[in-house]
């Protein structure tokens, strides 16, 4: 292990932490009704710290020049880092530049950086290069595209195969919204209040997919969970099993906001063959009438209920539809920002400030840690600016921890004092394979489309679609044997490493012939897979590996003497194989297939 990069971890002093920990326990037993329901409580302990005491655990290493001085830390960062001391964990050092770039590129754009970009960033002496990098990534097309995919999965779940076009339309709409920096609360309102004809589906896809087969209940449950972090659908069949405050009636009163909504997808004209390629059209109407009943135990429809927002009356404004009232109530709720920041934090760091991200228990619940409250406040104050939120998270001390040394059973990662190692999502893995091998680097649109199609085909094998009303978002892809088989024997990795013009191996081999020799070639392969340079030990291991194939620059004497008698083409072929195999091994490794 290279000293300086990953050595020198700092153990924090305990002390003030004890009070914080007790406070945390007390809150848990008050608020979490679930059996030993555990909440990530980073930041709750902040108030237990003597006023003015500097947050501890600002572990510094040579690799972390761009972290803000303590004085400049936001209240959110202070709350979070204070919890490190309280938890008494070892704080991992600041992540070094190469790993930071890889991590933030995966989180903001869904793919690893190119070798050239990584090298340029590492070598950039500027103090503010991390800020500039984050800004550049947030301004890129890839950012809008990737987050549109992330949001489409959230909003639609794993859409059915028959709804591929609806999903594509939703991705298009989201991409436009995200690229233009549309405030999150306005986006949510659009999704909920969509009315009229929507060619291509666009934002109306949410109402169609979540409320399909006229299931007002499913749409209501999804809306409360996704936008408010409240799993009120548990109260559909009976009074809520865990939230005392929600009765069955509250669920149906929430559902009543959608009671007059009519969503239709235009039937295709089967006689007209031209119609096949046409985008789907979704029509949403708000009817004058339509009521929601609380079903009675004997099966009769039961009493009609008026809409209410999580047990609270919200008066409808003049001329407002029920969905418009709901959208207004949601925008007025602090849960909107809390659920959003908790979800985005969870997407970026592997776990939410409250776990799971979509179970915030109840409005104004005391179990919300201070850190969640502060981050939500700053998100709301920014005008629900997602770029600003992502920027704040990316540059926070918590996000910039190293992942090294995860041997404490996850204690440090739980309070975000160490980065959590996470498997790449299918989208990230395929995008990264394409980037690292150079398969995705073509300017020719046809070639890119081919790569994209191959990616989609491979994805489709592993993503399960569920025919349930709740539409689970799970994909059965990350970290299992079929994935390992795909990496070992699949087309993408094997074709990807094969030497070809424009590919990574060809570029590395050209470097091997040049001034830098084999070491430069090895460095290029490391940069493309890991976004960092190899250390001396890694370089010598790789050199040994490559030379064993024979035919190399050094392969003229001793053991390799035999091969040197072979003709030049044989040498070349052996060398190509050597670099292909090294590239392959790197792409199969944990360091490549995880975000860390």
């Amino acid at each position: 292990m290279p000293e300086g990069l990953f050595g020198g971890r700092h153990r924090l002093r305990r002390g003030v932490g004890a009070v914080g920990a007790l406070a945390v326990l007390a809150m848990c037993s008050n608020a979490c009704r679930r059996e030993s329901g555990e909440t990530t409580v980073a930041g709750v302990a902040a108030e237990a710290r003597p006023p003015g005491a500097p947050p501890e655990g600002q572990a510094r290493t040579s690799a972390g020049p761009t972290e803000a001085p303590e004085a400049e830390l936001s209240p959110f960062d202070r709350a979070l880092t204070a919890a490190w001391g309280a938890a008494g964990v070892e704080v991992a050092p600041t992540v070094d530049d190469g790993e930071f770039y890889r991590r933030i590129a995966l989180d903001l754009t869904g793919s690893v950086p190119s070798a050239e970009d990584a090298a340029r960033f590492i070598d950039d002496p500027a103090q503010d290069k991390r800020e500039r990098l984050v800004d550049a990534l947030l301004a890129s097309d890839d950012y809008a595209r990737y987050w549109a995919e992330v949001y489409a999965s959230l909003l639609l779940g794993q859409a059915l195969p028959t709804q591929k076009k609806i999903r594509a339309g939703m991705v298009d709409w989201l991409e436009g919204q995200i690229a233009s920096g549309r405030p999150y609360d306005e986006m949510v309102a659009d999704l909920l209040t969509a009315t009229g004809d929507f060619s291509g589906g666009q934002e109306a896809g949410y109402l169609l997919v979540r409320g399909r087969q006229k299931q007002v209940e499913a749409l209501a449950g999804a809306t409360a969970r996704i936008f408010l972090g409240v799993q009120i659908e548990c109260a559909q069949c009976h009074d809520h099993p865990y939230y005392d405050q929600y009765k069955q009636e509250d669920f149906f009163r929430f559902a009543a906001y959608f009671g007059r909504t009519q969503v239709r997808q235009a039937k295709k004209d089967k006689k007209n063959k031209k119609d096949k390629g046409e985008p789907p059209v979704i029509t949403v109407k708000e009817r004058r009438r339509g009521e929601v009943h609380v079903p009675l135990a004997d099966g009769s429809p039961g009493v009609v209920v008026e809409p209410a927002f999580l047990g609270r009356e919200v008066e409808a404004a003049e001329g407002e539809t029920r969905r418009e009232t709901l959208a207004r109530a949601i925008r007025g709720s602090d849960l909107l920002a809390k659920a959003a920041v908790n979800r985005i934090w969870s997407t970026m760091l592997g776990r939410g400030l409250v776990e799971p991200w979509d179970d915030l228990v109840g409005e104004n619940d005391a179990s919300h840690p201070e850190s969640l409250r502060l981050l939500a406040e700053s998100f709301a104050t920014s005008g629900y600016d997602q770029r600003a939120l992502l920027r704040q998270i990316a540059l926070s001390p918590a996000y910039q921890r190293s992942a090294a040394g995860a041997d404490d059973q996850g204690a440090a990662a739980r309070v975000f004092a160490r980065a959590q190692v996470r498997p790449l999502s299918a989208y990230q893995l395929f995008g990264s394979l394409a980037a690292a091998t150079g398969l995705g680097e073509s300017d020719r649109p046809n070639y890119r489309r081919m790569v994209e199609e191959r990616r989609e085909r491979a994805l489709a094998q592993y993503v399960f679609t569920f025919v349930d009303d709740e539409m689970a978002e799970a994909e059965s892809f990350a970290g299992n044997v079929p994935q390992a088989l795909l990496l070992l024997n699949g087309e993408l990795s094997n074709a990807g490493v094969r030497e070809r013009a424009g590919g990574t191996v060809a570029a590395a081999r050209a470097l091997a012939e040049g001034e830098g020799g084999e070491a430069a070639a090895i460095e290029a392969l490391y940069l493309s897979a890991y976004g960092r340079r190899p250390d001396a030990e890694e370089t010598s291991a790789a050199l040994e590996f490559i030379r064993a194939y024979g035919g190399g620059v050094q392969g003229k004497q001793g053991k390799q003497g035999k091969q040197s008698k072979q003709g030049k083409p044989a040498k070349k072929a052996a060398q190509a194989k050597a670099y292909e195999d090294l590239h392959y091994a790197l792409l199969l490794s944990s360091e490549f297939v995880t975000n860390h």
Partner: protein
Amino acid sequence: MYSHNRRTFVRFGLGGLAAALMRPSSALATAPAAASAKAKACIVLFMHGGASQLDTWDPKPGRDTGGEFRAIRTALPGVRVSEHLPLLAKRMRKIAVLRSLTSREGNHERARYLMHSGYPPQGGVVHPSLGSLVASSRDPGALPGYVSVAGPGQGAGILGAQYAPFVVADPTGPVKNLKLARGVDDERLRSRVAMWRRLEGRYSARVGGPEVEGHRAIVEQALAMMGSPELGAFELDSEPDAVRRPYGPTPFGQGCLLARRLVESGVPFVEVSLKGWDTHENNFERVKKLSAELDAGMSALLDDLEGRGLLESTLVLCVGDFGRTPTINARGGRDHFPKIAAAALAGGGIRGGQVIGETDADGMEIVERPIAVPDLFRTLAGLVGLDPEETRMSAAGRPLTTVDGGSIIDGLT
């Protein structure tokens, strides 16, 4: 944590490849749990979406809540099941039916989590599924210890990715990506893998943690599978038609056949999903069709296991997300009803030919012997040779027992 799995010493070469790989090393004694288990293997037939208990195992003929179906006699005097389970009705002497399984989880995801792990979902810790627990308690073989057919199954949580289900989406298709890619021979693969192992060793020392060890283990498992003779278990075509046909031509039926073949090849836990039970509308037409699939698949499985002398050592469990409402909604459907569900068990250690638990005339309430999910899991754990009180550390540093509370279902075993 990851010491020397014998797969680390893998030798390749398509001839002796698998044999060299998979011969159990003498250094590894058979896990004690597996040795004492009544059920060496377990097959779960998972009714994905939540099957209507009233239209399958607990019919209420003549009541409004009973719906359209008739009830038929079974091999067990006085016990009736739905008319659409005629084959299973004849085999009731092998089967124990639970009619009073109860939980509080009415959301699919949460309920499935509970039914796979015995725990309700809780923030901060991911509980291992029963399949992953069983897989981790047995010596590793060429095939994964937990195979999930036609459904996603559930993950291994704190046990690590190496015990996650091996998902086979289509039981009749070939397992994908088992053959070496174009231009790659054994020697090249060996060389690639040797370099990969060096990289993993280094990264494990530098970063480590469960995700890293898990990835290493699943790649080793994939390597062990490639070229192993046990892969023949996936070739359903090698079964004679007379064996294949009774299972039914459906993915579920053929999945049941695959389950039997996998168990024969040493896989200790197989789950086969039958999807489509979320019958919020048009319940009766859909349940009739699904029942036919279940009836054929499960009956053929029980017969086939018995004919091969495997039923005594193979536990078969049929269960789903939750039950469905006795009341029939305006769309002719039944909604989620976690309060009452039914399950059926047979084989490995189960005393067949009985019904445990009773619901009232309309199926609205349990009137006798409510069985909570932890009760079921405590009973299952004993049968498959798991210690229900064994404690594992969660990533949160909290000790977790195999089963949380519950008591063994009296008389079931």
